[in-house]
């Protein structure tokens, strides 16, 4: 479980996050949604330690990530996996080397054990046969899968996904969403997803957190989004004709 308490983040006096209080449960897909510039990416970057919060707490199963020493943070980082918006795969490494990288750095597994683990996770994300390819030789959807494989290779307790559907076609987006959901449930991990994709919200949103101008404006499940009366949320979610029509049909 991840708890964010009274989190503030400012850049040069400009307050980007204002008193964020949220709880994200394990075994669930926790989606952070909001307009561009609302502070979603800043929030997720604060949670993984890429930005230092101005004030507040980020508790990983009760352990405060903000105040702990760098040595203690390193331990928590071993329990994190992250899928980046642009995948952040290492260009100079093959698919299997990318996935093996965390194992090489942080485990004392034998070469055989590492290879077995790499094969296992690549198989888990349906990427058999791409082991020796370089990131530049595979499609966007495959890159996302490699990113997911690398994120879960160390069996993390917390998985962060920054816009996992960006740049993907609708079918591949659904496949990636379902994959993330399956992994979350199978491994019973706390997954935090930063997204704009309303299909994801409705499809895998166990918990949806709507951020507006740096504040948590609304919380609920993906299904509750459809019935919410929150004006800002409705303006955001039902901005497209497609979702507006669906909501009117439901009425």
């Amino acid at each position, binding site marked *: 479980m991840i708890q964010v308490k009274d989190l503030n983040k400012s850049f040069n006096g400009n307050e980007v996050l204002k008193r964020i209080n949220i709880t994200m449960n394990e075994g669930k897909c926790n989606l952070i949604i909001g307009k561009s510039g609302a502070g979603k990416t800043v929030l997720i970057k604060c949670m*993984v330690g*890429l930005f230092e919060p101005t004030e507040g707490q980020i508790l990983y199963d009760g352990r405060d990530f903000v105040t702990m020493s760098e040595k203690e943070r390193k331990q928590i*980082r071993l329990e*994190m996996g992250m899928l*980046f918006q642009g995948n*952040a795969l*290492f260009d100079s490494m093959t698919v299997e080397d990318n996935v093996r990288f965390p194992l090489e*750095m*942080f485990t004392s597994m034998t070469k055989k054990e590492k290879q077995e683990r790499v094969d296992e996770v690549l198989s888990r994300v349906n990427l058999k046969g791409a082991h020796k390819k370089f990131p530049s030789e595979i499609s966007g959807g495959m890159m996302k899968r490699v990113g997911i494989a690398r994120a879960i290779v160390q069996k993390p307790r917390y998985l962060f996904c920054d816009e996992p559907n960006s740049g993907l076609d609708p079918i591949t987006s659904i496949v990636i969403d379902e994959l993330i959901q399956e992994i979350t449930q199978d491994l019973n991990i706390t997954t935090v997803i930063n997204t704009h994709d309303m299909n994801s919200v409705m499809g895998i949103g166990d918990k949806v957190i709507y951020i507006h101008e740096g504040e948590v404006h609304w919380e609920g499940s993906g299904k509750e989004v459809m019935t919410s009366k929150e004006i800002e949320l409705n303006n955001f979610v039902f901005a497209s004709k497609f979702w507006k029509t669906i909501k009117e049909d439901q009425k």
Partner: protein
Amino acid sequence: MNLIGVGSVGIISIMTLFIGAVTSVQFAYQLQGNLIPMWYIGIIVRDSLMLELAPTLSALLLAGKVGSNISSELGTMRISEQIDAMKIMGVNTTSYLIGPKVLASVLVMPLLIVFGVSFGIFGGLLVALGGTSGFTATEYIRGLQDPIKDFDTIVMFIKSVSFAFIITSISAYQGFHTTGGVVGVGKASTRAVVYSSIVVIIADFLIAALLL
């Protein structure tokens, strides 16, 4: 080590070969009609290459070749979030990404400079063998046989190591702190080359002023 060392042998060889040749031609021109014997050209070419030309010009060349390469590589890793990915995994990105580059250059640069000095001397010999610059190969070799001062060799290695450290650390710093997307990578790369070159020249003067 391959990029900085083996990958730079070709360009260093070509540059120092011609620098040695040009130095010998110019000094032969200067010494004509003087009382200084022509075999001095061998000493002048060798010592100039060791103390100044090979370390400094090679460093300026490597600031362009290796410095821009290191900076753009790290800059691209920064903007494509590869460095962030490593940080989240718990990797000490500075020591993992920059440390080996600095170490490799500090180890390889002295070897490159020795290689460069040899090629420069060979360039001077080729001019002598050409027979059109007023000194003979025998005279040139007579000059080369004059004993080398140990301290000159030490200064050459001090310069090589210092310049290698300057180029890689400045370039790595610029690349590592790249901001502003693809345009930022280009700017960081330019800054790496410019700053490295300026600091190399300043360090060259300081080393010479303090040690010679």
